[in-house]
């Protein structure tokens, strides 16, 4: 059995090697040779993937645990660097390293002839290192290390082309908004520590403690703090996973290179919030009020982002809003304590969203950077394979029967319906969101691949299919988005492989949450039929609305009018809630407080100066005489103290 620490070690070594390559070639104009750099960049993620596969094959049901040392050892906090490889982290790691490797291969083609080739891959490897630490860590603190690491890599990669001010601003925004969420994560950990000491930061110990407290009945004492901890952790998740209210950074994050959007801002990093909820499932099922908040926030986010997706003209922005919307679905599932289903949607979403992003990347690449869909169109004939990949991803995301998204979304909708008295209403909104999803995704496909080409002449001349290094990962991912769903096909009896894999981790929590529920017995075929109907209606609406000449593009790709006010509603909210108060406080500190302090300083200085002028008069002319006098004075004091024994 190979040790667990190999999984994060490989990307870390890759980061170091690539960083050395990037730094040593920083003086040359050409940059390092792309063949060697690319080979290194792809090799280490693949090695990591292979070790995950090797470990997955022989994994016992209860998982593998390994501690490599002590991290923090103080009186207040003891934390080990330990790894936990169980059903949940296995699934996450398989697709993180797998899709990470595919996207690394794709990037070799995409980043061709970029001067910062080596730097890019150093960041990608660092990201994979952080993400594997996040998923593999056996304590919240180690997960937090990875959580911060992926945030840093996200920032570095969004602002990768840092000569453009817009990109660096987007990077800053992502980083700052994420920090707001991270405060929630930190305070949540603090809550747990104040309940039961630093031991509770370890997942195993937390689960054991919760079980023990539940059986002793002493849990109600800790309930307020536990609820607060759950709420704060969820707040952390809204930052990382772009949910209301902290979602504004994700659309802006599209400023990064497209493979980054595919890997970080669609497939892996943004799903770490869902992972955290599933990892803490035993905590969350004890606090149903917080789960209701999760459900409500997920529902609102999914619906809002789906509408916002309708207004976007930038192809990557559409995909960004659809990511937010799909993340909303995952949180909805977690909100009704269907953690296995939410992780299943994470899994299928990783495939089809990565395929969609990589397809969009290929389109952008061949149009030399054009991202406005109003200047695309008719690419079906010119880029047939890319279109195929995109259409597979499209069918998966709208939930067309048989494709990956169909199975996972169907399960989410079903669990929503049977979740309780509010279930049918939530289900109705979620189904409506599914229709809207089909509409805006249909709009994307129609505007990009159908109709007539509307872009510039010079771009049209060299529209071409992507090179093989980009095409092969895309095609593999499109196969995944077609078939990944069969790992848990609700309609086929026995096809529950995925549920069985996750059952040891989240099964107990879910059966606890379902305690006392009488699940409404409806045939799963009804849900499947309604889901299919939603997809088809959405497609027809898209066909009817958008299969017509597109008005000529004027100005930027940002939405106008109502679309703008809907899209930027939360930016406005942040403006009023966060930015303006901060600016007011900053102004107060700068002008008012600073002036007062400066005046106080001048006053003190002035007084000292006046006093000094007076005291100067006492100086004796001779320095040595003065020293002798002070010595005599000292001696006198000593003698007096000796005589009177300090009673003077």
């Amino acid at each position, binding site marked *: 059995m190979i040790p667990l620490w190999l999984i994060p070690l490989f990307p870390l070594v890759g980061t170091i090697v690539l960083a050395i390559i990037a730094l040593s070639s920083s003086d040359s104009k050409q940059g390092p040779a792309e063949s060697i750099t690319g080979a290194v960049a792809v090799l280490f993620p693949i090695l990591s993937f292979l070790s995950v596969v090797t470990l997955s094959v022989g994994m016992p049901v209860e998982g593998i645990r390994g501690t490599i040392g002590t991290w923090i050892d103080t009186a207040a906090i003891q934390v080990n660097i330990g790894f936990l490889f169980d059903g949940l982290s296995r699934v996450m790691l398989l697709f993180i390293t797998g899709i990470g490797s595919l996207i690394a291969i794709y990037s070799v083609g995409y980043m061709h002839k970029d001067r910062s080739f080596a730097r890019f891959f150093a960041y990608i490897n660092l990201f994979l290192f952080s993400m594997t630490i996040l998923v593999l860590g056996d304590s919240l603190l180690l997960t937090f290390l990875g959580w911060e690491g992926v945030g840093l890599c996200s920032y570095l990669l969004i602002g990768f082309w840092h000569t453009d001010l817009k990109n660096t601003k987007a990077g800053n925004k992502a980083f700052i908004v994420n920090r707001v969420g991270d405060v929630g994560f930190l305070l949540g950990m603090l809550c747990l520590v104040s309940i039961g000491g630093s031991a509770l930061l370890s997942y195993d110990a937390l689960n054991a403690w919760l079980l023990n407290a539940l059986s002793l009945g002493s849990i109600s004492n800790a309930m307020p703090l536990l609820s607060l901890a759950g709420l704060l952790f969820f707040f952390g998740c809204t930052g990382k996973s772009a949910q209301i209210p902290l979602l504004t950074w994700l659309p802006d994050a599209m400023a990064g290179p497209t493979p980054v959007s595919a890997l970080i801002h669609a497939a892996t990093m943004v799903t770490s919030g869902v992972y955290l909820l599933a990892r803490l499932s035993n905590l969350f099922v004890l606090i149903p009020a917080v789960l209701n908040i999760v459900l409500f926030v997920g529902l609102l986010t999914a619906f809002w982002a789906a509408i916002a997706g309708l207004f976007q003209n930038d192809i990557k922005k559409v995909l960004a809003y659809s990511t937010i919307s799909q993340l909303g679905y995952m949180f909805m599932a977690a909100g009704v304590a269907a953690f296995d289903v939410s992780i299943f949607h994470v899994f299928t979403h990783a495939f089809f969203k990565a395929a969609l992003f990589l397809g969009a990347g290929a389109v952008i690449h061949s149009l030399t950077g054009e991202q406005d869909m109003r200047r695309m169109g008719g690419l079906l004939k010119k880029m047939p394979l890319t279109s195929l990949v995109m259409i597979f991803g499209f069918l998966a995301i709208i939930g067309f029967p048989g494709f990956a998204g169909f199975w996972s979304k169907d399960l989410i909708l079903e669990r929503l319906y049977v979740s309780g008295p509010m279930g049918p209403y939530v289900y109705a909104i979620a189904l409506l969101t599914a229709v809207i999803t089909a509409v805006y995704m249909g709009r994307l496909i129609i505007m990009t691949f159908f109709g007539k080409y509307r872009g510039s002449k010079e771009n049209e001349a060299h529209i071409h299919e992507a090179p093989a290094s980009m095409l092969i990962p895309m095609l593999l991912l499109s196969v995944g988005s077609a078939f990944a769903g069969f790992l848990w096909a609700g309609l086929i009896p026995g096809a529950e492989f995925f549920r069985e894999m996750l059952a040891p981790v989240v099964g107990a929590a879910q059966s606890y949450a379902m305690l006392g529920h009488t699940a409404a017995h409806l045939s799963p075929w009804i849900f499947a039929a309604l889901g299919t109907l939603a997809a088809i209606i959405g497609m027809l609406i898209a066909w009817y609305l958008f299969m017509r000449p597109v008005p000529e593009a004027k100005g930027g790709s940002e939405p106008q009018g109502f679309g703008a006010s809907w899209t930027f509603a939360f930016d406005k909210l942040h403006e009023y809630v966060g930015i303006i108060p901060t600016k007011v406080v900053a102004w107060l500190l700068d002008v008012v407080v600073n002036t007062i302090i400066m005046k106080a300083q001048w006053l003190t200085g002035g007084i000292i100066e006046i006093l000094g002028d007076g005291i100067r*008069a006492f*100086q004796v*002319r001779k*320095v*040595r005489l003065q*020293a002798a006098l002070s010595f005599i004075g000292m001696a006198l004091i000593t003698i007096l103290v000796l005589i009177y024994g300090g009673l003077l």
Partner: protein
Amino acid sequence: MELQASYIQIVALALFTIGLAVTLTRRNVFFVLMGIELALNAVNLSLIGFAKTLPAAASVAGQILPLFTIAVAAAEACVGLAMIILIFKSQESVDIDNYSNMKG
């Protein structure tokens, strides 16, 4: 024969007196500084001498303390020398009796 604690005090007193005398009698500012340093080290020596009379555990603490004093004294000597160099630049004299124009 064991080293008596009082002998150390006598040496320390002698050193301190020498240091003080140098400080008060010499006119060259560098000698004055040397004298001060000598007196300071005499005090350190005295501290160690007294520490020797204590039981072992407390004795160690007393013997370590001068190490810190020496470290601080080194920093202080740096500052002192730097100041003297600056004064020398402005006064062009190493005679300490000339440094008396702070008074008005």
